[in-house]
Structure formats: C-alpha cells, structure tokens
C-alpha cells in the first residue's frame, strides 16, 4: 500500500513538474519594446532657429501680425489649420441614427460649463484663433489663426481670460515668435488639462501633473521615463492631429491608438494577445485615473445660485477641492478612480442643441458599441454625472448665457437669474424657450486613454474574471466571461451529483465495513472451532 501511494504521488509530481516546465510565464527581453524606446528616446531637433530669422526681429503690436509673418514663410500651413476641428470647432460626419451632421463645440452641450454658445468671450480662450466674441466669427480669416498657442516653446505665451482668444496683454510677442517649435506638452495642456474651468476637471487622465510625473502615473510621459510629448502619439501630419475626443467627435477614423506603435499583438503571451479582439489595451493598462490630482465626478447645477449677503461664495472640502460655487452648483471630486467599463466601437452621438430628451439621465454623448459588434472593445471610461437646466415643456436642454463682463447683461454668473440667462442664451442659439425650466439628470462619458501604468500594475486577470460583485466587469452584461459567469442550474446539478456520489459511496463502504466485521467475528468463531477440534 505504501508503494502504491508513493508511485501515485511520484507520477502526479512528475505531471506537475512537466506542466510547470511547459508553462512559459517568465520574462524575455522584449525586442519590440526596446526598439520603440530607442526610437522615442531621440527627441526631434528643429532644423531652424526662429530667433535668427530677420522677419522676426521686430515688434508686433497685434498677434495677427505674428500670424501674417508666419504665413509669409509657411505659405500653405494656415489652410491646413483652417481645415481642422481645432479651428472650426465642428466636424461633419455620419452619425448612426442621425445621418450626416455637423457636431462640435458650436452645437454640442456638456454637463460641465454646459456650452460655449453665448459665452464665447470666455470660452474662446481655448480656440486657436483670435477675436471670437460671438457666433458671427469669420472662420475664413487666416489672420486670426493663433499659431503661437500650439507652437510656443518659451512657456511665455498665455491666452487672456475673457479675451475672446487673444493673448494676455503681458505677453512679449516678439520673444514668443522667436521661440516657436514643435508643440510641447504644455502647449496642448494649456487647454486640454484645464478644460471645464480647472486642472483635470473634465478628463481625469489629462492634467498638469503629466508635465513632470513618474512612471507610476504615466509610462509614456514620465519625466524619469520616455518623457514623450503629446504629439509623439497624436501626430500632426498636415495639422490633422491624430486622435478623437468623444465629447465632441463621432467617427471611428484617424484615432490615436496604442496599436499604432505597439501592434495588435504586443504580448509574448497569446492568451493576453487574444484579449485584444474584445478588450482595449487601455482597459487593463489604465487601472485608475486621476492619480495625482482629483477630477470632477459630478456637478449639480440645480444647487447653483445660493448667495451669502447677496454675494456669491465658494466652499471647499478638507482636501481643498471646491464643493460648492454659487455660480456653478455642487461638485464632487475623486482621486485614484477605478474607471467604469463600456463597449465602444469608436462612433458616438452627442446631444446637439435642439434635440429632444429621449431618456433620463440624458446622455450628453452616447458611445456606441456592444459585445456582438465586431468593432467594439471594452474601454475604460470616466462617467461624469450631474444635473443641468432644461426646458420642461419642450423637453430640450437649455443653453444659458453664463458669462458676461458686467452685471445686467443677463449672464447667470453675474445676475444669478436663470430666467434672463436662459432667455438670452436660447435666443442666441435660435431655439424656442417655453418659459418653464427645471433640472434634469445628465451623464457624460469620457474614454480614459492616458495615465498608462507600468505593466506590473496592469489590471490582473482575476479583477475581471471573478464572480465577485466588486469585479471590474461585474455590470457589463451581454457576453460570457469565464470566471464571472456560469450556468447556475448546471452548477447545482453537478454539485448535487458529485456530493451525492460521495455520500452514496460512503454509505456503501459503511455497510461493507459493518458486514465484514460481523463476518470476521463469525469466521473467527469457525476457525476457533476448527482449531479446537483436534484437541
């Protein structure tokens, strides 16, 4: 019996050892990745030093003069710029269920500062042009293209607040013009980090900390890592920047993807590679966002307008995030946020000015996708929730006039009167207003693409492949996920059979033991009897 057990144990151990040998989990030198690192370690060096150009040795009294000077050498570039969404604030594209439509900052709403219309003076701070004060902006005037906001390498350029996109008056235009070059992180960041009225308000994964962060925050942009700039991935061939931001974009084209460098099969392990058919790289490699500074998670406009002694005020929470502002309402913020997960195929729809509300919460942007759609993958998203003003009777969201320079100009941020702000805003966008407003719940979806973690920190298998309600994909339905899903009746039936068999076997064995004990006694008697007989 002992031998029996040893042999079985030895065989089993042999099997286990073999399994371990055949299982190749350990690390190899990743040549593909090293090549990429080599490639991106070499930072682009400009072939020209603008500070030496005679054309730029002069005073500029207006920023338009700078633009004219740029165009005098770069004779065609402004045309490229004027074809871009950065300039036009809209793109025409086909949208499922809507048809061909133009969408962009001109006509979408969001659930942060709601919309740019009627607030251009302030919002145009992030337009790559000068002088957008209202909706009569001339998008054909090349003189108004702001070259410097993207190409300034001196860190001195600054757009003025409430200046319709003009630079701050303190900016030395000559110095800036002489130090232009490839866009750096801060060029993009000056708008994209601060969208929504403060650092990291909107995105959650794009914020000022990325200017100098470590690899734990972002492997690509880390100062102690590859220190890549935005345009390393968001390449700007002919000023058409690669990348889609689905708060305004609609199509699955010209996206900046991880695959463009890493290929669709970047892992040594094919089990991981195969995930890529349905799971985006980001889903596993961005375990959390807002790793350094908090991001806004909700914004309730319905609370706005409370005044103290007739004056607006702000309240801060213990971690010094704004909790309340009379002009904006109540907020919540969060840091190190686990993303939500959604199916997404790269196409999106948006709430456009004038749309009727079909469901509540209103989806400010709808990300299309489902498991059965072959273009769809699971992506991480930040969901920003809130409520905002809408027309109760016409069932449309309202574009209120928020900003003005002084009181009495119907701007909510000065007068705190929704009635006049709504009337002024809706008149400007040319939509009817019934006179009855209320607040409706809204949601907005922000795909999370930055703050890629080092691979050791990627989401582990069991964080999704788990029956736990805490699983990252616990609420993403419509498909079979091993480890999360199982057939309940089958499990019940199977366990019943298994344990039933165990019990049956034990009962059978018990009977055998009892009976054999009895028989042994009997046998013993017989033997005794027989042994005794000869005596």
């Amino acid at each position, binding site marked *: *019996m002992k*031998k*029996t057990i040893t*042999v*079985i144990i030895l*065989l*089993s151990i042999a*099997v*286990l050892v*073999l*399994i371990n040998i*055949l*299982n190749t*989990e350990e690390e190899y030198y990743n040549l593909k990745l090293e090549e990429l690192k080599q490639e991106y370690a070499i930072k682009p060096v400009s072939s020209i030093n603008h500070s030496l150009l005679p054309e730029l040795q002069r005073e500029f009294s207006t920023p338009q003069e700078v633009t004219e000077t740029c165009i005098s050498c770069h004779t065609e570039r402004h045309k490229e710029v004027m074809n871009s969404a950065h300039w036009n604030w809209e793109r025409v594209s086909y949208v499922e269920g809507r048809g061909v439509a133009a969408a962009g900052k001109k006509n979408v709403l969001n659930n942060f500062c709601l919309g740019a219309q009627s607030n251009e003076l302030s919002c145009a701070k992030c337009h790559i042009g000068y002088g957008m004060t209202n909706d009569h902006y001339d998008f054909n005037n090349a003189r108004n293209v702001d070259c410097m906001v993207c190409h300034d390498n001196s860190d001195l350029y600054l757009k003025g607040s409430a200046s319709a996109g003009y630079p701050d008056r303190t900016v030395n235009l000559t110095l800036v013009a002489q130090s232009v070059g490839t866009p750096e992180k801060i060029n993009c960041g000056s708008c994209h980090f601060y969208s929504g009225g403060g650092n990291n308000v909107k995105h959650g994964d794009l914020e000022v900390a990325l200017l100098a962060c470590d690899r734990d925050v972002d492997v690509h942009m880390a100062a102690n890592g590859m220190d890549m700039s935005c345009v390393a991935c968001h390449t700007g061939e002919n000023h058409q920047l690669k990348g889609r931001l689905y708060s305004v974009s609609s199509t699955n084209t010209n996206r900046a993807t991880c695959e463009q460098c890493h*290929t*669709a*099969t970047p892992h040594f392990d*094919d*089990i991981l*590679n*195969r*995930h*890529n*058919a*349905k799971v985006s790289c980001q889903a596993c490699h961005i375990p959390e966002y807002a790793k350094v500074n908090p991001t806004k998670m909700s914004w309730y406009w319905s609370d706005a307008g409370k005044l103290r002694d007739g004056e607006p005020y702000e309240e801060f929470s213990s971690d010094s995030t704004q909790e309340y502002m009379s002009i904006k309402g109540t907020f919540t913020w969060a840091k190190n946020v686990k993303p939500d997960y959604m199916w997404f195929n790269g196409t999106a729809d948006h709430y456009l000015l004038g749309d009727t509300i079909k469901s509540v919460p209103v989806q400010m942007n709808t990300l299309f996708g489902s498991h059965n759609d*072959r273009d769809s993958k699971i992506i991480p998203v930040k969901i920003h929730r809130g409520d905002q003003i809408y027309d109760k009777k016409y069932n449309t969201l309202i574009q209120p006039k928020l900003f003005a320079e002084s009181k009495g100009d119907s701007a909510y941020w000065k007068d705190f009167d929704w009635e006049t702000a709504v009337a002024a805003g809706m008149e400007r966008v040319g939509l009817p207003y019934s006179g009855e407003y209320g607040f409706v719940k809204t949601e907005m979806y922000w795909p999370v693409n930055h703050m890629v973690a080092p691979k050791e920190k990627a989401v*582990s*298998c*069991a964080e999704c*492949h*788990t*029956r736990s309600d805490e699983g990252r994909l616990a609420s993403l339905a419509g*498909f*079979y996920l*091993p*480890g*999360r*899903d*199982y*057939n309940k009746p*089958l*499990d019940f*039936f*199977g*366990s019943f*059979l*298994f344990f039933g*068999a*165990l019990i049956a*076997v034990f009962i*059978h*064995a018990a*009977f*055998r033991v009892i*009976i054999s004990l009895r*028989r042994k006694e009997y046998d013993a008697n017989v033997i005794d009897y027989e042994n005794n007989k000869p005596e």
Partner: protein
Amino acid sequence: MKRVYVYKGFERFWHWTQASLIIFLAFTGFEVHGTFHVLGFEHAARFHRVASWMLISLIIFAIFWHVVTGEWRQYIPTTKKLLAQIRFYSIGMFKGEKHPTKKTEVKKLNPLQRLVYLGFKLVLVPVTVISGIIYMFHKTIDRNDIVMVSDFSLETVAFWHTLGAFLLMVFLVVHVYMTTTGHTPTSNIQAMITGYEDLEDDAEESEQQEVS
C-alpha cells in the same frame, strides 16, 4: 489463485498519467470556473491550458495503443451478466457472494465496467476534451496578426465543458471507490501499479471467455 500480468506497461503509465492530469485539470478548471480560489485565476487558467495539451497528447497515444494492441475489444459492451453485476454490487457483496464474473487477462472488465468505461471513453472524455479544445480556439490569431473571434457561443461551449467536468468528477469518486471492491480493498489498485494481479483460475474460465 494465479498471478497474472493483467495491465501492460503503457496501460499503467497511461492510466496514472491520465488520472493525475484529469484531477489536475479539474482542480484548475474549477478554479477558472470560480468554484474556489487556490492558485489564482491567472495561474489556474495557464496551468489548465498546459495540462490540457498534455492530456490531448496522452489521449492520442492511448487511442493508438488501443487500436494497435486490439485492447479496444475489452470495451465491447455486453448485457450478459450485467444485471448480475449490478445485483452483486448492491446486494450480493454484502451477503458475501462471489463476483459473478471472472477477471482474466483477456477479459479484464466485467460487463458493468465495460459499459461505464466505454461511456467514459466515448462520451465523457470526448465531450470534455472537444468542448475544451473549442473553448481554447474561441479566439485565434491569424497570419495577419489579427485576433479572430469565432461565431459560436462561448456560453454553450462552457456549458458542455463544465458538464463534462462535473461528470468526470462523479466518475472519479465512484471509480476510485469501486477499485476497493476487489479480492482485497487494495488488490485492484496494486494491480494497476505492478501490472500483476492474483486471479482465480477455475473451470468456469473457459466458458467465460466465449462471452464477448
């Protein structure tokens, strides 16, 4: 009693390797399934796949062996004495009756074993292994490095695979227990290890052989 060489070398190797592989696959498989957590999902899934390839190779060898040696004939089902065998396990053995069938070199399996093992080989293992292979190839990477997802429902495949796994476990329990019903509780197991077993040789034997 006669000491007979019943189980050939390959047969014993195959039997024990298959046994440990199936137990290991069940262990890792049910961890993947979410029944318990020991190795962690990641290791369980990886080990399960490696072990499954080993089982597949082993099965290919075993099929070859069965065909070449003609041992497959051992599993041709018969109804003769089937009921007697069932009666023996449920009643007879408690009364101290003898096995209704004789085990011999050329006829190692009693009618009940034939039926159950045939089911094991033709239904249970194929259902589990084939569904497992389909499970494994649900997603593949084609020559253009594009990940292809097959159209079949993973849920259905997982259902059959899990069903097979449960039934294999039931088989395991009953099978292990039944090995203790030989001449002595360990005689069958020892036979599967050494290859030799003490078998009765009496006059009935020749008659028995004609059955199949």
